């Protein structure tokens, strides 16, 4: 057909640019993980699998992996539970509900830096509003981010606050596409509210929930900035997960090869998860 040559040209240009922009850096990341170099400008030396061997022998690596799993699983489960509840709450046709929906999205728009600074100010040990509130309830001093356990709880709670709206909106879109007749039929069959939720809402929302679970898992597992800005991985490494470890190795301990090895391993773990996930929950062909 006329003009098809132009379209092939555009396609090839697009693929070349994408390859340069995305796949070359990804290839280079793997390449770096097989090299030993002290900084980004020093000459590389090929060391084979030495970085991987050394990284896998580091106790810090395994501790960071476990911490990352704790951080991501708690924040994902809470985001989905809260997001689904809020979506059900907001799935009404009432005056003013559009405004309420809009307000509930706002946390998601904020840059992570802004979120973290605001929470650090609210949780400030002596002058923050939450510390004042805690004092009013009789607690003298709360170590929000100074104690290993409460630091982890704090980063989980903040990430739930920021990213729940994503789940809410996705579920809300899913809820609105469930035909009303299904609920009617269930009601006629005598199903109560709980049974309607269990046997109509949940099965109908299944595709949405599966996509949300997949995307949230990928992003929470990789999440770097919220933890880095809130705690720098501390106190005493209590919140140091794989991305923070990779950053510290590459840019603070000047071991780019090991940092790249940690990133690559963490990407492989995630890819493994995705493969297993699709084995259990294959996406519909039409989607």
């Amino acid at each position: 057909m006329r003009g098809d040559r132009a379209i092939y040209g555009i396609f090839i240009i697009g693929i070349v640019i994408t390859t340069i922009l995305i796949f070359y850096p990804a290839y280079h990341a793997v390449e770096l993980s097989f090299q030993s170099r002290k900084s980004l400008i020093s000459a590389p030396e090929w060391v084979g699998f030495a970085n991987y061997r050394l990284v896998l022998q580091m106790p810090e690596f395994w501790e960071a992996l476990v911490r990352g799993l704790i951080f991501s699983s708690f924040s994902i489960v809470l985001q989905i539970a809260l997001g689904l509840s809020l979506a059900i709450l907001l799935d009404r046709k009432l005056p003013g509900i559009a405004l309420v929906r809009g307000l509930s999205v706002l946390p998601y728009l904020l840059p992570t830096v802004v979120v973290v600074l605001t929470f650090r100010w609210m949780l400030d040990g002596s002058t923050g509003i939450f510390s004042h509130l805690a004092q009013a309830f009789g607690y003298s001093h709360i170590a929000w981010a100074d104690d290993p356990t409460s630091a982890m709880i704090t980063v989980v709670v903040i990430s739930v606050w920021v990213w729940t709206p994503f789940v809410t909106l996705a579920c809300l879109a899913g809820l609105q596409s469930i035909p009303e007749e299904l609920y009617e039929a269930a009601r006629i069959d005598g199903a109560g509210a709980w049974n309607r939720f269990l046997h109509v809402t949940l099965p109908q929302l299944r595709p949405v929930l599966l996509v949300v679970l997949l995307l949230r898992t990928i992003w929470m597992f990789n999440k770097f900035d919220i933890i880095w800005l809130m705690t720098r991985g501390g106190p005493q490494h209590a919140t140091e997960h794989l991305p923070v470890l990779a950053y510290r190795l590459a840019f603070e301990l000047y071991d780019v090869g090991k940092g790249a090895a940690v990133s690559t391993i963490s990407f492989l773990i995630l890819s493994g998860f995705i493969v297993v996930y699709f084995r259990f929950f294959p996406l519909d062909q039409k989607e």
Partner: protein
Amino acid sequence: MVNHYLVKTLYWILIGVMVIYSVFPIYWMIVSGLRDPNVIYNTVSIMPGPWSLKSYETLLDLTDFSSWFKNSMIVALGTVAITITLSTLIAYSVTRLQFRGKMVVVGTMLYAYMFPPLLLAIPLASIFVKVGIYDTLLSLIISHTTISLPLGVWLLWGFFKQMPQDVEEAAMVDGCSRLGAFIRVVLPLTLPGIVTVAIFTFLLSWTDYIFGFVMISNDANKTLPVGLETMVGLYELRWGELMAGSTLIALPLFIMFSFLSRYFIRGLAAGSVKG
């Protein structure tokens, strides 16, 4: 009937709790930036005031906030321009071409969009050092494009796929070239999709901390999130100024959202957002 009112009241109480939960930190950020810095540490009141613009004045006088704002704007708009152009062309050509392995191209786009940003940031920094554009705004535009381009192609691919080919073929029968049909017929129909991609690319670039943090060290080239974060160390945690700066970063996003929330929610529902 009493029962009915009880349920209704309970419902609105729950909605109220949800709104307070979602909005309070944002409210507190705005209020703290506008409060007189002399009393910010001893005023415990939830109510705003005493009002003062002192924190904003100090922020703009003592820091490079305005040049950070300009840098962020240049990077965000640059990324949006490149992403829209490339993702429209790639997505269109993928949907209109018939060849084997087409789904592989689309699939790898989705896969690329799952790369951890830090996994891309380390090699990109190394490449930029080699090419000599490390620590420039251009390096940030390219970095942000690596994330936004797969996202844009993925979203627009869905758009072009749904669009019937008859429309453009009719235009071509009427004497348009393929390119003419694309510009005159296809592009206007795809505008909502392009706006959605533009919004998310802007959001992604404007809020990015990771790439700015890894790529930029010169104070003159900092973007807003990176610049604001460096203030924490410099001014011994003066929360009034930090909250004023936070408000100024969030404001453009809130304004954009209030005008374009329709496109925003469409994109979110399509599961197309990074974050």
